[in-house]
C-alpha cells in the first residue's frame, strides 16, 4: 500500500481510513490538490467545493474517531455530475439558463451520499442538459480527455469520467440516458454502470428524458462501482418509478467475479452491435475480451437482436419528445437566467421567456426541443412518438428473447476510441452514432456496465467493453465485469490507467 492516495481505488481508500493509515481530511485535501494541479487543462469540474468537502471530511474523521462511521465509504470523497441537485451548491446542468441557480434541496442520491459521509468535492462538467457524447456542448467549455488533451472525454458525463481518469476523484456519480456514463467510461479507460431503470432514485436528477435517465456510478474499478451503486441505490418513495424490491448484492457479485471463474455462464455476443461502423482497433480489443471470458469458463454464442438497428432512430424520437416538455420549465419566470428582449420597452412575460430561452439554451438543446415539439404535434404524434414506442417494445422483446438463451450480452461500448475535439461538432448524426451500442439498454431499462478493455492498436486509446444483463440482474454485470477486469489486469500487470500519460506539469 505505497501507492499515492489519489491513485488508489475507493475500496482501498476505505481500507486505509478504517486502518487509520490516513484520514478523510488528508485524502480529501489530496484530491483537492490534484484538482488544483490538473483541472485547468482537464476541466472536469464546473464547481469545486473545497470548504464543504473539508468540513464533511472533518465530520467523517470525528465519526471514525468515535468508532461509528456512517458507511463503508464514510470519508471517501466523491464528485457529482452537475445534473444532480445539490442543496447550497450551484447546479447548472452545463447550461447558461441555470447559471447561478442554487437548489434548495438535495437529490435523493446526493442526500444518501451525505448521509453515508462522503465529502462532495464538486460538480462535474457535462454536455448541456446531458445532450451530447463529447462534453463539447457544455456552455462552460469542454472537458478534455486525460489520455490526450486534444481529444474528447465522451459525454454527456465527460466531466465525471475525466475526473476519475485524471485521479481528481476516486468516485463520481453520473447519469446515463443513452450512454452518458458508459461511453465516457469507454473512451477514458474508466468503469461506468447504468443500473436497471428504477434501481437508483431519479429524484433531483434534472431530467433529460425521464423514461430513459438513470443515475449510476463512475469509478476506476468494478468493485468500486458496486460499492457506490449499493450506497445510492434502492427504493425511494419520492420517485414513483423506483423499484421497491431490493437487488441481489452487487458487492458480493463483484467479489465473486474477481475470483475469475465464469464456468457455466452463458454469454451472448450481439451480432448487430459490431462490424460496420466499428473501428478495427475497438473490435480487436472487444474480441480479446470475449476470448478471456471463454478462458474463464464462459460459454459464448452469437445472438441476434434485429430491432437494435432501429434503436438510434427510436431514441431520437422518444428522447426529444420528453426533452421538449421537460425543458419547458426553464422560462425565466422563477429561477435561472432572465434576459430582457432587446428593443422592447416593457416586454410581456412571453417575450421575456422567448428571449431568455433563446439566449440560455445552446444549439443542441434547441435542436432537440424543436425535434420533440414537432414529433408530439397533432397529426404527427402517432407516426413518430407512437411508432417509436412500438419499436421500443420490439427492442425489449429482443432483449427478452436473447436473455432466454444467455445470462449476459456483450458488445463494444462505443464504436470508436476518443475523437478529436471539434471533429464531430458540426455533424450531429456522426455525434449521435457514438451511442449506437449503449442506447438499446436505456430503451429497455436493462443494466449495462462498461469497463476498460485495453488500448486500441490503431489509436493507442482506451476501448470499452460493455456487459448487459436482464432487468434487476445488475449483479451479473458486476460479476462478469469483475472477472474480465481481473483477467485483463493480470495481463497488463495493473490497471489500464497506469499506462495513461502523466498530467503532472500540465497545470497552468
Amino acid at each position, binding site marked *: 500500500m505505497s501507492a499515492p492516495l489519489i491513485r488508489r481505488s475507493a475500496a482501498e481508500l476505505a481500507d486505509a481510513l478504517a486502518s487509520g493509515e490516513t484520514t478523510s481530511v488528508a485524502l480529501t485535501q489530496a484530491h483537492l490538490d490534484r484538482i488544483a494541479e490538473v483541472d485547468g487543462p482537464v476541466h472536469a469540474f464546473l464547481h469545486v467545493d473545497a470548504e464543504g468537502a473539508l468540513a464533511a471530511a472533518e465530520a467523517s474523521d470525528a465519526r471514525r474517531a468515535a468508532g461509528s462511521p456512517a458507511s463503508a465509504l464514510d470519508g471517501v470523497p466523491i464528485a457529482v455530475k452537475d445534473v444532480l441537485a445539490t442543496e447550497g451548491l450551484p447546479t447548472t446542468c452545463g447550461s447558461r439558463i441555470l447559471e447561478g441557480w442554487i437548489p434548495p434541496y438535495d437529490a435523493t442520491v446526493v442526500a444518501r451520499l451525505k448521509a453515508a459521509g462522503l465529502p462532495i468535492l464538486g460538480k462535474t462538467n457535462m454536455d448541456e442538459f446531458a445532450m451530447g457524447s463529447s462534453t463539447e456542448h457544455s456552455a462552460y467549455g469542454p472537458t478534455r480527455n486525460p489520455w490526450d488533451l486534444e481529444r474528447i472525454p465522451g459525454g454527456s458525463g465527460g466531466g465525471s469520467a475525466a475526473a476519475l481518469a485524471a485521479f481528481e476523484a476516486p468516485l463520481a456519480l453520473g447519469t446515463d440516458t443513452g450512454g452518458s456514463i458508459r461511453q465516457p467510461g469507454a473512451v477514458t479507460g474508466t468503469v461506468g454502470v447504468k443500473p436497471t431503470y428504477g434501481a437508483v432514485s431519479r429524484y433531483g436528477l434534472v431530467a433529460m428524458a425521464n423514461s430513459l435517465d438513470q443515475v449510476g456510478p463512475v469509478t476506476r474499478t468494478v468493485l468500486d462501482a458496486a460499492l457506490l451503486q449499493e450506497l445510492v441505490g434502492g427504493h425511494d418513495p419520492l420517485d414513483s418509478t423506483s423499484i421497491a424490491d431490493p437487488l441481489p448484492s452487487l458487492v458480493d457479485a463483484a467479489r465473486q467475479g474477481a475470483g475469475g471463474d465464469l464456468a457455466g455462464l452463458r454469454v451472448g455476443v450481439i451480432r448487430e452491435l459490431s462490424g460496420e461502423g466499428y473501428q478495427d482497433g475497438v473490435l480487436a480489443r472487444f474480441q480479446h475480451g470475449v476470448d478471456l471470458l471463454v478462458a474463464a469458463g464462459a460459454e459464448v454464442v452469437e445472438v441476434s437482436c434485429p430491432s437494435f438497428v432501429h434503436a438510434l432512430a427510436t431514441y431520437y424520437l422518444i428522447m426529444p419528445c420528453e426533452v421538449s*416538455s421537460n425543458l419547458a420549465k426553464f422560462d425565466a419566470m422563477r429561477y435561472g437566467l432572465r434576459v430582457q428582449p432587446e428593443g422592447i420597452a416593457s416586454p410581456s412575460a412571453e417575450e421575456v421567456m422567448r428571449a431568455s430561452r433563446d439566449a440560455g439554451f445552446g444549439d443542441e438543446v434547441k435542436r432537440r426541443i424543436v425535434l420533440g415539439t414537432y414529433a408530439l404535434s397533432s397529426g404527427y404524434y402517432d407516426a413518430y412518438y407512437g411508432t417509436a414506442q412500438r419499436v421500443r417494445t420490439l427492442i425489449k422483446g429482443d432483449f427478452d428473447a436473447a436473455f432466454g438463451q444467455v445470462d449476459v450480452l456483450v458488445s463494444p461500448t462505443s464504436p470508436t476510441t476518443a475523437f478529436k475535439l471539434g471533429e464531430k461538432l458540426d455533424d450531429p448524426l456522426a455525434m449521435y452514432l457514438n451511442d449506437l451500442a449503449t442506447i438499446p439498454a436505456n430503451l429497455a431499462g436493462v443494466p449495462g456496465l462498461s469497463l476498460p478493455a485495453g488500448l486500441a492498436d490503431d489509436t493507442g486509446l482506451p476501448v470499452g467493453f460493455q456487459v448487459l444483463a436482464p432487468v434487476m440482474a445488475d449483479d451479473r454485470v458486476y460479476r462478469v465485469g469483475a472477472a474480465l477486469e481481473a483477467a485483463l489486469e493480470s495481463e497488463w500487470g495493473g490497471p489500464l490507467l497506469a499506462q495513461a500519460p502523466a498530467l503532472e506539469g500540465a497545470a497552468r
Partner: protein
Amino acid sequence: MSATAETLLPFDDVLAAFDPALGLEVHVELNTATKMFCGCSTVFGGEPNTQVCPTCLGLPGAMPVVNGKAVESAIRIGLALNCRIAEWCRFARKNYFYPDMPKNFQTSQYDEPICFDGWMDVEVDGETFRVEIERAHMEEDTGKSTHVGGATGRIHGADYSLVDYNRAGIPLIEIVTKPIVGAGERAPEVARAYVQQLRELIVALGVSEARMDQGNLRADVNLSLAPKGSDVLGTRTETKNVNSFRSVERAVRFEMQRHAAILQGGGSILQETRHWHEDTGITTSGREKSDAEDYRYFPEPDLVPVAPSPEWVEELRGTLPENPTQRRARLQAEWGFSDLEMRDTVGAGALGLVEETIAAGASPQAARKWWLSDLARRANDTGVEIGELGVSPAQVAAVQALVDAGSLNDKLARQVFDGLVAGEGTPEEIVAARGLAIVSDDGALTAAVDAAIAANPDVAAKIRDGKVAAAGALIGAVMKEMRGQADAGRVRELILERLA
C-alpha cells in the same frame, strides 16, 4: 368578434329554428389534505407561496408522486356518476406555456381517464333528463395569477403580475358530459340542474367543499346549435368559469340567442373560448381555438400507471351515498311533501338545505316554507345562490324554534333573517339586539288594548253588539302600537274579554 353590441335572437325564435346541444365541463377541487403530487397543504387562504415545495414549484429535478386519497375521491365520484373505472390508466402532460404553470405543462389525463361512460339523471320540473358522462379525470390545478395595473385585470395591459403557487398542484377532477341533445327549450334549465345536482352529489360524497364562490367547483359551458331536425352538431363555443348555478342557466340562454342571431344572419360561429360576465349577463370573445392550442399530450413518464384493483373499487362502491333519485323519493316520503312541493324544493337548489334544517329540529313544512319563500326570494333579489346567503340550516331551525315557542311570529322571524343576512350574529343575539321578542306581559298588552278601544269607540260598539269579526281592526291597531311584538291570538282574546 366584437365584445360589444351582440345581436340576440328572441329565445322562442331560437327554438323555432334550432336544436341546442350542450356540453358541460365541471372542475371539482378535491378536499384532500395534501396536493395531487406532493405533500404540501391544500388549506385555502394561506400567505402566498407558503404551501409550496420543489415538486409543486416545478423545480429542476423534482418529481411527482400520486396522492392516493385523490385517486380514491376520483373513483368515488366516478362510481356515483355510474361510470366505468379504468383497470389501468396513465397521467399525461398537457404542454403549454403560462407563468402560473410551474412546469409549463399540466399533469392531467388525456385518452386514459380513470372514470368513463357514466350518466346522471337530472330532474327539471318533474321531467327527467339523462345526462351522459363521457369521462371524469384527475389533474392538478395551476397557480393563481393576479395582474396588477391595466383596466381589465387580465394579463394584457397589466403593469406586472403576481403568482401564488399555493394553488399549484391542488387535485382537480374534471367531469365532462357527452353532448346533451334534445333538451330544447329546457336546455338552460337542464344545464343549471345538472351543475346543481352534481354539486349535491359532490357534497354528499364529502370529496370537496364544492363552494362555487371560492372556485372549488368551476363550470365551463359548451354550446352549439344545429338547424332543427338536423343530427349534425353545429360549431361550439366554450364559455369559461361560469361560477354560479344561475349564471350557468343565463350563459346557456345567452349563447343560444347569440348563436342563433349569427346563424340566421347567414354568419358562422367561430370556435372559441368565451368569457362570462356576471354583471352584464353576456359573454365576450376570449382566445380563438386554433392550431396554437396543440397541447402535445403524451404519457407522463415520471409516474407509473394507476391500476385500482377491482376489490378496492368494490370497497369504494360500498362507501357511496344514496343515489340522488332514491334519495329524493325517500325524503319526499319522509317529509310528506306533495310532488309540487318536492319539485320546487329541488328546483330551488334547497333539497340539502331543507334536509339539514329538518335535521336541526324544524318541521318539514316549516323548513320548506322558510327556504322556498323568504330565503329564495332574498337570494333571487340579490343574485346569490340560496346556500350562500349567509343563513345556515341550523339558524333557520333556531328561528323556527323561537316561533314554535311563541317568542317570535313569522313577521318578526323575517326581521331575524334580515339580521342573519346582515351578519349581526346568532338568531338569539339578533332578537335581543333588535328587541324583537313578542311581548307576553299582559299588563302592557292590556294598556294597548284599552287605548285601542278608547280610540275606536265605533268598532268597540260593534263588537259589543256581537259583531266579533270587527275585532280585526282593533287587533291591527294594537299590533301597530306594539310594533308587531305581540301574539295576535292573545290580543284578540284580551279585546273580546274587555268588550264582553
